[in-house]
């Protein structure tokens, strides 16, 4: 689906309600766009391209403004996400403990590259640049839960209950 087509796609009622609720929660606050997008993503798992005109209209911004913000920040996703989000730290402290090897293991194990979602929609794999757990590298976050000193075996044990 082209981006243009996505923008014209109507939002279903449920999605529209969620976006309107996110907008209402920030009503009256100055410069609320980032916080609205966070709320939308928390509710829907991503920021649907079709949400952009609605958000722009309510916040009195141009579509380009909103699109510009959504695409500037790594955190905001524009496509649906897997049931479990796995973030692998790639920054220096984790590199000093050879996180590249862990990343290779995880990609092989799940059969998906960084930034991808497995075909069954179970896992989304994302790189992340520092989780603040740098004295216990390599660090991994799974569905918002932080894990330290993650070896390939430890990773397998962590995802066993998820599969």
């Amino acid at each position: 689906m082209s981006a243009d087509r996505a923008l014209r796609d109507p939002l279903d009622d449920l999605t529209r309600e969620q976006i309107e609720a996110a907008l209402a929660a920030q009503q009256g606050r100055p410069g609320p766009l980032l916080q609205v997008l966070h709320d939308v993503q928390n509710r829907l798992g991503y920021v649907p391209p079709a949400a952009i005109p609605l958000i722009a209209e309510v916040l009195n911004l141009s579509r380009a403004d909103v699109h510009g913000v959504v695409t500037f920040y790594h955190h905001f996703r524009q496509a649906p996400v897997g049931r479990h989000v796995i973030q692998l730290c790639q920054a220096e402290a984790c590199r000093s403990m050879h996180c590249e090897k862990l990343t290779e293991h995880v990609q092989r194990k799940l059969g998906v590259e960084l930034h991808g979602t497995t075909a069954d929609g179970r896992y989304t794999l994302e790189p992340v640049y520092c989780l603040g757990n740098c004295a216990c590298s390599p660090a991994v976050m799974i569905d918002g839960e932080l894990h330290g000193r993650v070896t390939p075996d430890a990773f397998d044990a962590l995802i066993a209950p998820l599969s």
Partner: protein
Amino acid sequence: MNIKVYVPRDATALSLGAGRVAAAIEREAQRRGLRAQLVRNGSRGLFWLEPLVEVATAEGRHAYGPVTVQDVPSLFDAGFLEGKAHPLHLGPTEEIKELKSQQRLTFARVGIIDPVSVDDYVAHGGYAGLKRALAMSPGEIVDAVTQSGLRGRGGAAFPTGIKWKTVLDQPPQQKYVTCNADEGDSGTFADRMLMEGDPLMLIEGMTIAGIAVGATQGYIYLRAEYPHAHRALNEAIAAARASGYLGSNVLGSGKQFELEVRLGAGAYICGEETSMLESLEGKRGEVRVRPPLPAIKGLFGRPTIVNNVISLASVPVILAKGADFYKDFGTGKSRGTIPLQLAGNIKHGGLIERAFGLTLRELIYDYGVGSASGREIRAVQVGGPLGAYIPASQFDTAIDYEALSAIGALLGHGGVVVFDDTVDMAGMARYAMEFCAKESCGKCTPCRIGSTRGVELMDRVLANVDRERNLQLVEELCDTMLHGSLCGLGGMTPFPVQSALKYFPEDFRKTVQ
């Protein structure tokens, strides 16, 4: 008898199983019909001992660690609730060597108190600074901060008092206090630990700042990667508001100060102050041209204090104990204490708060006890992804702003990442360019395009394609980025690259397999 048991809620402790240990202790106490009150404290910062469980005894707190869920029944059997012996017993917490030798001012309460209890905070000396500040004139508060010699702990090391004075001197209008909690440097976690372990200290520091310069609204710009800190801050703000320490009438003084946490969205550049302000306004985090300084035209075009978490959290102790007390720590132009973060390939990693002047060698070997892998330590990177790589031959350098600057390095936010002899420094130089390419806001061409060209050049160097000529181009590119970028991302990405080239040239000239 209600015995207090402490199990940290700190993200690192949780990442090592503290949450499960806390639940197991609760279950086991219940099963045995014992009454124990579980307190979820911050971390003491001795991460090789986490999860570190403490018990309050008549003779002070005793520590056990690292505790796993499997250890819990045996701890009860041994009588750990009375501080009795067990293979994991570490003795009185305050006597642990690596903790005892620290000089904790900013982290004085972290790991000790319940982070979101105003009563606990006040019982441990909290809000003494705000009370003194409320009895002072705005000018006197700013003078105290200036006199203390406090310099911005975020990385730029600009004198905090001078920033405040500039905001104070602007005509009365809506002013803001913003806290930069976008701690994106790899190897740093002091802000996170403080926000999770003693968030009220940051809140107090921001309140004092607001009262000093006449700002009624504060924002904490927190990175989205810190969900635990987010929860702790919001709980602490609610508790402070409920107790009258925040709101329309702070402690009955008639002064107003409100505080809100706003989340970033995974952009390293938003740790740069003008980019952070753009992001707080809900925009793309593109760097602004200075002047005007944020102190004159900052958030929403108004005079704004922008300080790092540790800078703001250092303010309460300066006000409570006086500028001279704080200034007496440290050396030369680096006054006070610095919370160092020892990270990466290190055996005893964690947080070490000391007066300026400790050497890298003391930090890495006395506190850190060498590499985690047991191999030789080859390099450290100080100050995050934009900091220089320092070779073992320079480990006797003192950790202060001037001494590090003299060897072409920088202290930044105080993170020290350790690498053993398996590190490929050419790979790390390539990574520095790659990181810059990913995180560039796009405003300046040398940073936006240069970083991508830098990755390509490094790939050619690594593949031994016209190697010496491409290394020469890397040097020239670094020079262009250094001089042609508005902010530190483009302007400092050359530091790790150039230092790797200078001290580890052999890594750039390996035979291609």
